């Protein structure tokens, strides 16, 4: 039996501890980010928005969460 309650992942370059087995949707909710307004890359692969709910994050994942900002 494993008693890993938290796992370490990297979000936008920052190390974070999150609950084991958290889905991507769950993570976004905990960060108060509206899923419809961001694009997520997980370990360099883009995650389709419709998979946000079914993706279970794993120890060591590297996430990039991006959105549009003002720019020329």
């Amino acid at each position, binding site marked *: 039996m494993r008693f890993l309650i938290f796992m370490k992942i990297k979000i936008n370059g920052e190390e974070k501890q999150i609950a084991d087995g958290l889905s991507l949707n769950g993570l976004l909710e905990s960060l*108060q980010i509206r899923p419809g307004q961001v694009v997520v890359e997980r370990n360099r692969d883009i995650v389709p928005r419709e998979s946000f709910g079914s993706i279970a994050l794993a120890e060591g994942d590297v996430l990039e969460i991006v959105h549009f900002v003002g*720019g020329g």
Partner: protein
Amino acid sequence: MEDFFELAGTKYRSRLIVGTGKYKDFTETKRAIEVSGAEIVTVAVRRVNITDPNKENLLDYLDPKRYTILPNTAGCYNADDAVRTCRLAREAGVGKMVKLEVIGDDRTLFPDVPATLDAAKILVKEGFVVLPYITDDPITAQKLEDIGCAAVMPLAAPIGSGLGIRNPYNIRIILEHAKVPVIVDAGVGTASDAAVAMEMGCAGVLMNTAIASAKDPILMAEAMRQGVEAGRKAYLAGRIPKKLYATASSPLDGILN
């Protein structure tokens, strides 16, 4: 007279493309864009601040149904990063048109031309509608057109410099040969600069700083709209040739003596 700006199969009324950076807030961004009459607006792709996720989102102020959102690759210094940024932008669901800029150096912000060509090849192959920012070099413009870019966007002057068109002769050569729209991108300082680009026959002008950093951005947005419109009309009207000596405007017959 109906005059449309056709880009990648879509017809636009406005030939002014505006950026959304450097405004004091989203309300000012929205207002300036409305007044500019622009239908295509550029945006950048950046990390969300996860420690303080801004509840306000740029797209809350710019309805993607009303505006064509043109994501850029600003801040990318190599082809891989630019391609990665475009793929992320496409996933946001605002279409497949991208403003490709691969920057070569942070002092001039001039493009890295070989890297721009490399990125354009990949992006065109992946189905993107690519609008590349380039130096005012006719050879590069031709190569990008051959690769399949939907337009070419030579700079007037360095980004944010406000110097206006530094090399009108190169822009003229690009215009003579291009079969895709030529959009002057970057370096415009004031309305006359935009008018000059349009008078030369450019299909459009793209700007950000000239409006956003003006003392009164809303008024400058209006001036830029009018500058672009005036320049376009002058181009269509066909200007008189430049001559060294005078030609009287009033009749020479019937002068009192």
